[in-house]
Every structure is written in structure tokens, then in C-alpha cells.
């Protein structure tokens, strides 16, 4: 009977350990801090650093997009919060937007961020911020996608009259 309970305990504990190892190899954390953050995400206790998020929002509104992105990346180090990823994508959009041309590199990075936000969000992602002109992730994604596509419309001189959203 005692041997049976040792077998059960051994099997259960080592199965948990094996699952943790598979998870570590699948997520490939780069430091102990990332291991801890990843564990919080897996356990559902992960939260964005609200102070850093607000600081980034202030920078974003002052049009200091790179600094804002840095802060947001620190606030959401696991890249697991859809709202933060939406804002990061928006900052790429605003920084990459130009009256004559769009910065392709920034728009592509923005597209990656918005795709991440959409994948993380359980439903359609909407951000109620009156300072933004696009509130849904779908709108922002469409805008970023249009910016990365090459069409005949790009040579239209009236393009300079467009406004940034």
C-alpha cells in the first residue's frame, strides 16, 4: 500500500515537473525574470505595470513615440496585454505616418504588434480613448496594412491632403 502511494506521488510530481520543462522549452525564457513573468501569465495572475503604462500614455500624447513604446514594453514585458499591444501598434502607426510616404519598417512592426493584440484579445478589441481616432484593433490593422501595400494610389498628388488618425 505504501509503495503504491509512493508510486502515485512520484508519478504526479514528476508529471508536473515534466510539464514545466516542456513549457520552458516551448516559451524559451531568456532570464529568471522572464520565467517568473511567464509563470504569472500561465497562472492567469499577470498584470501590466499600471504606473509605467500611464507614463507611456503621457509620452504618447506628447508624440514621443519611441520613449512611449519603451515604457509600454517595460510595463508589459510578457507582451500579453492586448490593450498595451494596441497602443504600441498605434505608436508605430503615428510615428511611421508621413504626408508623402509611410515608413515601411515601422508599419510592419506596428502590424506585428496589432496582430499580437488581436490574438491576445478574447473578443473584438476596442479601446475607449477619446484622444485616438481609431478605437478598434481591426481599424488600426486595416490602416497599417494599407500603408504597407504598394498601389497606383501612392503616386496620387492629392495624397498629401490626407490626415493622420
Amino acid at each position: 500500500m505504501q509503495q503504491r502511494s509512493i508510486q502515485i506521488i512520484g508519478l504526479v510530481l514528476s508529471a508536473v515537473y515534466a510539464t514545466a520543462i516542456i513549457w520552458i522549452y516551448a516559451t524559451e525564457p531568456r532570464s529568471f525574470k522572464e520565467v517568473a513573468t511567464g509563470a504569472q501569465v500561465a497562472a492567469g495572475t499577470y498584470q501590466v505595470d499600471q504606473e509605467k503604462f500611464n507614463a507611456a500614455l503621457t509620452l504618447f500624447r506628447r508624440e514621443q513615440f519611441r520613449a512611449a513604446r519603451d515604457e509600454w514594453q517595460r510595463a508589459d514585458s510578457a507582451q500579453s496585454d492586448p490593450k498595451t499591444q494596441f497602443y504600441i501598434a498605434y505608436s508605430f502607426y503615428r510615428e511611421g505616418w508621413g504626408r508623402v510616404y509611410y515608413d515601411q519598417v515601422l508599419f510592419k512592426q506596428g502590424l506585428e504588434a496589432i496582430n499580437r493584440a488581436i490574438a491576445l484579445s478574447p473578443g473584438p478589441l476596442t479601446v475607449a480613448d477619446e484622444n485616438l481616432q481609431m478605437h478598434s484593433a481591426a481599424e488600426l490593422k486595416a490602416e497599417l496594412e494599407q500603408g504597407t501595400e504598394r498601389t497606383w494610389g501612392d503616386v496620387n498628388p492629392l495624397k498629401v491632403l490626407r490626415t493622420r488618425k
Partner: protein
Amino acid sequence: MSDELVIATNKLRNHALVTYVVLPFLFLTVILLGGLRVSGDDRAFIFLPPSLVTLVLAVLLLLLFVRGGLIEIRSLITSANPPLTNVAHIWMLLTLFFACAQAFNSVLPERGLLHWLFSFFFLWTLWNNQFSSFDARRLLRSLVVLFGTAFLLKHLLLASLYSSDGSWLKSLTGALVSSVTLGALDSPQFAPATGYISFFTLGLYLLGLMLISFSHQQPANTSIVDTL
């Protein structure tokens, strides 16, 4: 309860603890650490899953364990055992298999010609050993030498040759070897911690093998020191 009965009960309990708790944990730790490297640039963790060749080497090594009598499959998995015991033994063997693969992963160079040279020598040695007569003790000694040599070559000799903070002579030799072989002998630079992790991993792996040998093969009065 007589003293003999107490001793017999304790032996049974210890044997169960080693087989069903300690060994899977040791081997799982080897699985975790065997693929872990620490980057030389930013000290970040790099996790390398076992490559196909390490899985092949692990299969050969397990066959060698069975041939050498280190593992007695017939007594571990048999219809006479309770189902839970069979499951626990299969689980232990599974962890052993992946631990073998990760032990190889730990001492194989990560890429290039050296990776294939090391793999070839391992394959050659294990294949030859399939046709030699072995007992568990000799097999363990042979494995200590095999893994020890590979560890010394990879983590001392090669790491020192390609180290960025070595002497100018070492750097020159490394650069010469790299340029003469057109980068075929190139090796990624890892932090010194990688060598320590590998050493610890191999130590745990060999300790696990010794415990298997001790619990399955040796008479009750034989110590681990005798096994070595």
C-alpha cells in the same frame, strides 16, 4: 516487529523512493539542464531541444543499458506487475531516454563540422559497444570516460580556443582554425556558466545511472563507491 522485518520494510520503502521519485526527478533535471546554454553576449538563457542525432544516440545507449544488464526490461515491465508499477517503470524509462538525449546534447558542439564529428565518434563508440561483452559496472565506467572526454573537449578545449577573453595566442589559433576551415569548425561563444551547468548535468545523469545500478543490480551490502 522483528529487526529483520523492519530492515526489509525500510529497504523496500527506500527502493520505491529511489525508483519512483528520486530517479525521475534526477533525469527530469538532466532533461531541463542538458539543453541550457548561457549566451556569451548578454548572459541570456538559450534552450536547445534535443536534435535528431541525440535521440538516435539515446536509443543506442538504452540498448546498451539493456545488453549490459543495467536495465532489466523483463523485470521492470511484466504482466506479473500491478498496472501502476508498470506505468511508473515506463515513466522512469521515458525520463531516462530523454535524459540520455539531453546528456549528449550537453556535450555535443551546437553546429558545424565539430557537431557532426562528435556525433560520429559517439555513434561509432556506441555501435561498437553493442557487440562487446559488458556488465553494468564496466558499462558505467565506460560511460564516465566517454562523457568525461566529450565534456573536456567541448567545454575546456573548444571553449578556450574560441573564447573572446583568452590570450592573443588562443585567439590567433581560434581565428586560424576558423579561417583555414572556412568557418566549418566555428563554434558559438557561451558564458563560462554553460560549462558549469553541463558539468552539473552530467554529474546528475551519472548519479542517476549509478542509482539504477545500485538499486537493481547490486547486492544489498554493495555501496555506490564499489559500483564505481
